[in-house]
């Protein structure tokens, strides 16, 4: 069938220890193979080009109820970035909340092939999957929000880990989800009545449980279920000056769950959780304290949540935090609480260069990234669109690989922010090898995606080829070229098909939707008792709640055998 041969490129495949070797990559039937018939195969001449596994984004809000409300309420964001229909591609709009087709095209143009939608309220999971179906050229998965789910709160407060695990397994299959997402644990349920939690030991009203117990409980459940990814955690007190203490306490609390060297928690958009200071006036970076901790422990991975200086849209399940942003900015604010499960909020936000706090935020993301010694713990994201649109990733790549790029941006920022920034003391510049880890190999490993993020035999043929010749250019010096190259892939190959060439989409490919089919020894009994409880807790019938198979255009279930 279809055979493809990528010849003579500089290959960066950290999972297999390959660091810029000139080699050929052979593809057959959508997988990487040992070799193909060179005469028959279609050839791509990658001489002088960088070849990496396709990009993997561990945390990007691109589908579902919240994202769509963001789209609906910001026509003024769309009108500045229109996308015309072509013979192969649909029309749409972009900028901070692109329409679904445009999301797929733009990620693919940057060489990305797998993305994770991190916030899915299970009640509205069908909506998330419908939008993922309309996001072309990418493989995708979604994380159901479980940290404030009444079932979890009730079973954990009774200390009943096994029952909790059974229901989490059931929910993973019912919502066709991939990992356990926890946001401001305890805070979302409290927000149901307009309240919040302020420390990991605050008791959640009406439920006799603390955030510490929720996080540790679910981390243990995660282990019992053998889920491929660890718990995916958005910490309490996000976005508040001085919150790094909560973040440290959170990481310490999870130490007890770790029994080996494998991570037990992934802290997402860590930048927002690394603020020191007593108020906005004295707010400064706690990147040093946080990175010191992470450097000396092995149970945590994280992603940056990098801020970009632009007008973007924030959207998270952290309802109380979004309300705080409304109080600070006065912008139009959406709140969207979901019964029994979670909360949510959306508000446009403009990160400004001349604002000291925003400058510090921008700096913190990069400080965290560069102060972590082991790049396998650290991943590049903007928490799209919270920190900025994903289309700004090439800018972050330039900042990570070039001190010159960082300085050029920093010197145009607020003087106060410049003085506070730790970046002038940091000389580290990531190499292409390390870049491949933090944008693809590391993310795939943390997600437990065995066939993604690497170019070994048996991997999915998801490959990105960039116009960067490591022998000819110094990526730290010519960062503008690097930015352009990573923004317009020379080739993006998806499932062995050429999806993008020279930064333009040339072929439509339907990606797969991955989900975990968790098999426990005893599955949850769906009896009349369960159905009755269902009716009490939700306003929909049990039968109408699950995401049935036909909701996924191209399903890709991953069988997971639980230890419970």
């Amino acid at each position, binding site marked *: 069938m279809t055979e493809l041969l990528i010849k003579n490129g500089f290959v960066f495949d950290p999972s297999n220890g390959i660091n810029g070797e000139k080699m050929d990559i052979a593809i057959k039937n959508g997988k990487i193979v040992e070799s193909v018939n060179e005469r028959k195969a279609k050839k791509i001449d990658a001489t002088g080009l960088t070849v990496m596994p396709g990009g993997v984004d561990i945390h990007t809000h691109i589908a579902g109820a919240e994202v769509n409300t963001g789209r609906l*309420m*910001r*026509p*003024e*964001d769309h*009108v500045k970035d229109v996308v015309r229909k072509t013979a192969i591609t649909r029309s749409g709009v972009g900028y901070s909340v692109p329409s679904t087709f445009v999301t797929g095209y733009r990620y693919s143009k940057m060489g990305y092939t797998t993305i994770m939608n991190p916030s899915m309220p299970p009640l509205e999971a069908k909506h998330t999957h419908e939008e993922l179906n309309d996001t072309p050229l990418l493989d995708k998965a979604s994380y159901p929000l479980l940290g404030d789910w009444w079932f979890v709160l009730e079973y954990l407060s009774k200390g009943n880990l096994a029952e909790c695990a059974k229901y989490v397994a059931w929910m993973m299959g019912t919502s066709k989800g991939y990992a356990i997402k926890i946001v401001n644990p305890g805070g979302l349920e409290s927000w149901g009545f307009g309240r919040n939690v302020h420390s990991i030991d605050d008791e959640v009203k009406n439920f006799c449980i603390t955030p510490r117990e929720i996080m540790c409980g679910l981390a243990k459940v995660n282990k019992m279920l053998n889920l491929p990814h660890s718990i995916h955690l958005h910490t309490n007190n996000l976005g508040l000056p001085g919150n790094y203490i909560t973040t440290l306490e959170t990481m310490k609390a999870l130490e007890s769950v770790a029994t080996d060297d494998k991570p037990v928690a992934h802290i997402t958009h860590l930048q927002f959780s690394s603020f020191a200071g007593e108020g906005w006036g004295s707010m400064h970076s706690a990147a040093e304290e946080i990175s010191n901790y992470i450097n000396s422990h092995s149970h945590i991975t994280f992603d940056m949540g990098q801020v970009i200086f632009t007008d973007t849209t924030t959207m998270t399940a952290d309802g109380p935090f979004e309300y705080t942003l409304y109080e600070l900015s006065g*912008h*139009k604010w959406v709140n969207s609480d979901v019964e029994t499960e979670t909360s949510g909020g959306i508000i446009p936000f403009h990160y400004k260069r001349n604002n000291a706090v925003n400058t510090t935020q921008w700096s913190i993301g990069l400080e965290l990234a560069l102060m972590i010694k082991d790049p396998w713990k650290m991943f590049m994201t903007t928490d799209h669109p919270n920190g900025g649109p994903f289309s700004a990733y090439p800018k972050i790549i330039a900042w990570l690989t070039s001190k010159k790029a960082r300085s050029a941006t920093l010197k145009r920022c607020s003087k106060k922010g410049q003085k506070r920034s730790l970046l002038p003391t940091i000389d580290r510049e990531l190499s292409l090898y390390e870049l491949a880890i933090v944008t693809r190999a590391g993310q795939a490993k943390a997600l437990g995606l065995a066939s993604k993020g690497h170019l070994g035999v048996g991997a999915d043929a998801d490959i990105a080829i960039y116009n960067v010749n490591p022998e000819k250019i110094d990526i730290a010096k010519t960062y503008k070229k690097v930015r352009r190259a990573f923004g317009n892939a020379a080739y993006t190959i998806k499932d062995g098909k050429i999806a993008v060439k020279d930064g333009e989409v040339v072929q439509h490919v339907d990606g797969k939707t991955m989900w975990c089919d968790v098999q426990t020894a005893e599955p949850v009994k769906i009896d009349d008792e369960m159905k009755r409880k269902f009716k009490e807790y939700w306003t929909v019938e049990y039968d109408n709640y699950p995401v049935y198979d036909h909701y996924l255009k191209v399903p890709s279930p991953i069988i997971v055998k639980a230890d419970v």
Partner: protein
Amino acid sequence: MIVLTPLKKFKFPVYAECINPDVFQNKSIAEIAVLPVYEGNKQKKLGELFKIEENPAETPNITINGDVGEVRRIGEGMKNGEILINGNAGMHLGEKMSGGKITVNGNAGGWTGSDMKGGIIEIHGDASDYLASPYRGTSKGMHGGKITVDGKVGSDSACYMHGGVIKIKGDAGPFLGFSMSDGVIHVAKNAATRLGANMRGGKIIVSGFVEEVLPTFTIDNVKPKVKIDDTESVQGPFYVFLGDLAEKGSGKVFVSKANNPHMRTYEKFL
């Protein structure tokens, strides 16, 4: 300099942002004739929809003779030069303009002068809704420049205004100056309800009849006259209302005392 005459009565919407002195500058008639426009869903050339001729006079730079009520975005973003329209003009006339002058001897469509930064727009007929109001979802409107309308204006005009001057010789529709924060609006005749709703700053002056002001406006004092801009003042006396309290605003609404006897009840608060 250039005279455009529509070759037919347009049924489908025509988008012609190329009709702009900055775009026409230094172009020959042949080059102007092939500028792209849209008619409905078909891309066309300007010369297919308009007769294009040269006029020896220096100004106005562009004259349009005929009804262009279906032609949208004329003068969009223009920085200098003059456009004269002898007929009705379509939506988005002079949108985002920062300089120059547009005159319409006829009526103007919706969103005329939307997001204006500078320059002059003179409408000798009526203006439709959303005069000088920005795009949906934006909270910053007209920033500078001057708009005069001889006839009446529709609803939701001058929303989010934060600079510039608007003079309306006829009546104004509801929600004039919604959420305005700076700038001056004068209505020579009557203004409809919800005048200055959500106002935070700026001035609205009505010389005619106002049925009522919002309950979230309080009477401040009576002024004998008020300044519109450096060239013009209006004779009162005027009741001066401060508001909008719902937004903790300090906008001022001046309402003619003589033409609003029913507002005498407010005098007890002075």
